[in-house]
Each structure stands twice: as structure tokens, then as C-alpha cells.
């Protein structure tokens, strides 16, 4: 759907250094990268705000590298929304359609569709300065979506919001993605959002895309030390969650069950940070905990820790200090008992 080949842009402070990226039709693609990686300028270059110095941007088999932003079927929502302060919410949403001189009929039809979808009815006559962050975000989304873009670019759409608004926007983004045929390309610096939102994920560093893949794949098998350090090697397992008295029982896809303190039901991804897992050479008996038995398949040294990859039916990474590693005298092939609290399991 979107094909970017060897794209270079230089703004002095930030630059793109040969971006190669492929996004599929109808996909929700998330680019994850630290501050200063060049994420926003990548989106701006796709939108046509900044010219490409080299390389190609191809959208639905049509090269758009040289065409002006207004003629690209691409819309963008900035992190700080950029609602026009001199216009009301309704005028903001209608802005693009009026510029393009659509008939009043089309304008009101499209506007009311997204006003309904994003629940903006009560805000229509207000000015952006009186809106909360979450409300602004929804207006900015509506203003872009009425243009019926092929590709919607989202610059950190969630991170600046308070937690309840984050939840709501994430749900609404998923809903928008389901109900329209728009392809979404989002950038974020947050791992959790990347795992949760992205069908696929690309990791960006210093103007380059350094790895792409399914979110679980990227997080499980980071290509490089940088990615491993940046994203942290979370254990991520897909499964099905059933609630029972405030505790979620997650039936993992590849067998086994883990429990979590969570109110999420249905299809989930269970994340467990490797340093939250305790190990022992003897069985651990403790209620309210997840326990497993497994075998060490790999031992690798990180900056200040040792990572053990353990096969316990599922492959699970554990981080321990160098001291406990030498105290416990662990070797490849050793059998270990693992335990982690229900509160250490994060369902997304």
C-alpha cells in the first residue's frame, strides 16, 4: 500500500537516512523509536511537508514523492493536534472539505458520520482552547478522517493524554481502523502502545528503520543490542483471558495457563518483564503465583545482568543479576522452577 524506498530528508536537526518501509493495505502499522529518531519528520515527508532529497514514496502503485501535500490522499494528526484556534470544532472539521469545495450535501454527510463515530455532537460550537486533550485529539482525528484519506498518519496520538483518555482514544482508533478502510501509520516512543496498537511494528533509530515485523516477533527477537535495550525484552504471550473474581485466567495459545490481576477479557497479549521472574532450583509452593518448570536453553550476558532463555512449554526470558548467576551456578540444560506474581503479568 505504502512503499518507501531509500528515502533521505535533511532538516539539520533531524534527518532521514535511507528509510525503507512497506505498509500493507488496511494495516495498522506502528513505528517505535526514541525521541530524536526522526519519527515526526518521516510522517511529514510522507505527507509532503518536507521534500525528499532522495528516494521514492509510492502509495497504491502511484509515486507521490514530488506531488504537493494537498494532492496526496494522506492526512496527518500531530501530537499537539494543531486545531485552528480561530475556528469552532465544527469549522475545524469542515475545513478541508470546504477548501476542496465539496457540495454542502457531501460535507454535512461526511462530517456527521465522524461526529457520530467520535461522539463530538456536544462540542461542535466550542473553540479548541476550551477542550480537554482527549477532546482535541478526537476533533483532530475527525478533521483528518472526513477527507477520506487512503493513509492516516498519527504522530504520538496517545502519549500526551491522561490515562482514561488514552484508553478511550486507543479504543476509538481501533474502531476507526475497523470501520473505515483507512490504513494507519502511527509513530510512538512507547513500547506498550506499539504492542497494543500495531498489527506490525517498525523500530526506528537515527533516521533509519532498523527492524520490522509482527509486534510479538520484534519484541521477542530484537535484531540488535540497541533494539533490545530500547524496547526491553518483554515476554509476550498471546492467549485468551477469562475473568474470575478480579483475576484473569489466561489460556495461552501454546498450552499452559497464567493468572493476572486485570479486568481484560478475550484475546489478550500477556507481558511479563524478565526481571520480575524469580527462579529456584527446587519447587516453589506459593498461592497466588504463577509457577512453571523449565530448562535453560540459552545464557547471554547483558550490560549488568544475565539473561536466561528458558523453555517451559513457552519460551520465556528471565533476567538475574550477575551475582545470583554465579551464586546459583547455572548451566545450559539445567532444570529450573520459575515463579512470578499475578501482578507482574500485564495484559494488553
Amino acid at each position, binding site marked *: 500500500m505504502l512503499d518507501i524506498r531509500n528515502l533521505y530528508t535533511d532538516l539539520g536537526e533531524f534527518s532521514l537516512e535511507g528509510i525503507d518501509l512497506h505498509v500493507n493495505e488496511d494495516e495498522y502499522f506502528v513505528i517505535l523509536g526514541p525521541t530524536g529518531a526522526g519519527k515526526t519528520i518521516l510522517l511529514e515527508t510522507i505527507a509532503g511537508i518536507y521534500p525528499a532529497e532522495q528516494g521514492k514514496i509510492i502509495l497504491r502503485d502511484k509515486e507521490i514523492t514530488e506531488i504537493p501535500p494537498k494532492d496526496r490522499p494522506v*492526512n496527518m494528526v500531530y501530537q499537539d493536534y494543531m486545531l485552528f484556534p480561530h475556528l469552532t470544532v465544527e469549522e475545524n472539521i469542515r475545513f478541508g472539505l470546504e477548501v476542496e469545495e465539496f457540495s454542502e450535501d457531501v460535507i454535512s454527510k461526511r462530517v456527521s458520520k465522524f461526529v457520530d463515530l467520535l461522539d463530538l455532537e456536544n462540542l461542535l460550537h466550542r473553540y479548541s482552547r476550551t477542550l480537554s486533550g482527549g477532546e482535541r485529539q478526537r476533533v483532530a482525528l475527525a478533521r483528518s478522517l472526513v477527507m477520506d484519506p487512503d493513509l492516516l498518519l498519527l504522530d504520538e496520538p496517545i502519549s500526551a493524554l491522561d490515562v482514561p483518555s488514552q484508553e478511550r482514544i486507543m479504543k476509538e482508533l481501533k474502531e476507526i481502523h475497523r470501520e473505515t478502510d483507512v490504513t494507519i501509520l502511527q509513530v510512538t516512543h512507547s513500547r506498550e502502545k506499539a504492542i497494543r496498537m500495531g498489527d506490525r511494528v517498525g523500530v526506528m533509530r537515527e533516521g533509519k528503520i532498523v527492524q520490522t515485523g509482527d509486534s510479538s516477533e520484534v519484541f521477542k527477537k530484537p535484531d540488535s543490542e540497541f533494539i533490545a535495550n530500547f524496547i526491553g525484552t518483554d515476554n509476550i504471550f498471546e492467549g485468551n483471558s477469562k475473568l474470575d473474581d478480579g483475576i484473569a485466567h489466561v489460556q495461552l495459545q501454546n498450552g499452559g495457563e497464567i493468572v493476572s490481576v486485570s479486568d481484560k477479557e478475550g484475546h489478550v497479549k500477556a507481558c511479563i518483564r524478565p526481571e520480575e521472574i524469580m527462579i529456584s532450583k527446587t519447587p516453589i509452593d506459593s498461592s497466588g503465583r504463577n509457577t512453571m518448570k523449565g530448562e535453560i536453553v540459552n545464557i547471554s550476558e547483558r550490560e549488568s545482568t544475565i539473561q536466561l532463555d528458558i523453555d517451559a512449554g513457552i519460551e520465556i526470558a528471565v533476567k538475574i543479576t550477575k551475582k545470583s548467576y554465579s551464586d546459583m551456578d547455572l548451566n545450559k540444560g539445567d532444570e529450573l522452577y520459575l515463579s512470578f506474581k499475578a501482578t507482574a503479568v500485564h495484559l494488553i
Partner: protein
Amino acid sequence: MGKNMDSNRFKAATGFFLVLIVAFIISVVACVVTHTTPQALINNLTSAEILFAIRLSLITATASTVLCMIIAIPAGYALSRYDFPGKSIANTVVNIPLALPPLVAGVGLLLFFGQTALGKGLTSIGLDFVFTPLGIVIAQFFINVPFAIRIMRSTFDSINPRYEHVAKTLGCNETNAFWKVTLPMSKNGLLASSAISWAKGMGEFGAVLMLAGATRMKTETLPLAVYLNMSSGDLELAIAAATILIIVSFSALYVLEKYGGDANIY
């Protein structure tokens, strides 16, 4: 305790200087407005000469303000948004009239319009700036346009270019994005910029005197009315003109305080 007393004394000393200058300014202004009786003031304000000066000042200041804005909006925008070779030189040159004594600027304008081929050419097609009301407009424009440009530049600086970026992805070309988004968002800066150009235009003396001359009932704006009547000893008429200029200044100050915001004038 000693430290506290020290700081109180310092506070009192600095405060004393502030009170001194406030009292001085109020006294000077009060001297002008309280010199005549209200009845005499009204009589003088409605004299043919002062009415002429009011009318001429209003027309020329308004015309020069329009001219200032026509130049200041695009020039301020270019200085704010674009990088180009010679930008810092352009910026310095644009500010020259700020530092130049208006009288000297007036001499320059007189030579430019009176002596050069361009000036003579303009005269031959009917645009005569020397010793005419048209010269008043140009003199006011030349002195005030740097202020207008500075205010517009800092206004555009304060507007995130991403607003224009969004407008472009929503179907605007550059011009459209400017008219539909940036300019309406600059409303306060436009108001502040126009107000200061207009008020300074009303009060401009030195450059106007040099280029347009001081001909009674021909190029006699309010400041020139003050000058001419003071010279000829008609103190009452001079004060009537001065009083109006004080009112103009106060109104402009009010508009600036209200809408100037963070527009950086100096």
C-alpha cells in the same frame, strides 16, 4: 533583621526613583492639557486650521498605515518563515529607519524624490512627493514600516508552522494556508501593528517636515500645527493640536496593551 532592613531600604530607594519619573511624566502631560480652559480648547479645536490639520493627519496616517501593512505582512512572514542568503543583512537594513533620526531620514527622502532620476520620473507621471501631502504619507511610511515589520515578524514567529502544514494536507496550497489559517491567527499582531503605525504616523514630525515642508493649510498635520503655531506665538492653537496628539497616544497605548500580547516591538 539587619538584612531585612537593608532590603527595605533598597526597596525604598528604587521606589523613590520610580515615583520621581511617574510624577515628572504626569506633570508634563498635565501642563499641556490644563493650560487652557475647556471652552477655549473647544473653540480652538473647531478653528479652520486645526480642523484641517486633524483631517490631514487622519487621512495621511491611515494611508501610511495601510501601506505599512501591505509591506509588513509579506516581509514579516518571509523573515519569520524562510531561510535565505542575505537574511540577516535584510533584517538589519529593514531596521535602519528605526535608528536613524527622522530628520535625517527626511533629508534622504527629499534627495531621493527630488534629485534622483526615479524621483523625477515619478513626478513626471503625477506622483509628486516633495512638499505635498503625498510626501507626508511616504515620510510616515518610511519611519514606521520597521515597527510594523518587527511586530508582524514576531507574530508569525509565535504561530507554529505546523498549523500551515495541517492546512496543506487538508487541501490548501501555500497561499490558501496563509489566508485561511496564519493570517486570521495573527489578528492581535495585525491590530497592534496597525495601531502603532497609525499612532506614530499621527505624531511624525521630523521626516514629514523635511520631505513635505511646513506649509500652513497645505501640509500642516497636527505635529506641524503645533510647531507652526508655537513659532508664531499662537500658543492656544498649538495646545489644541497637542491635546489631540496626547489622546491619540493614549488610545494607541491602550490598544497595544490589550492586543500587543507578546509581540516584540523593540
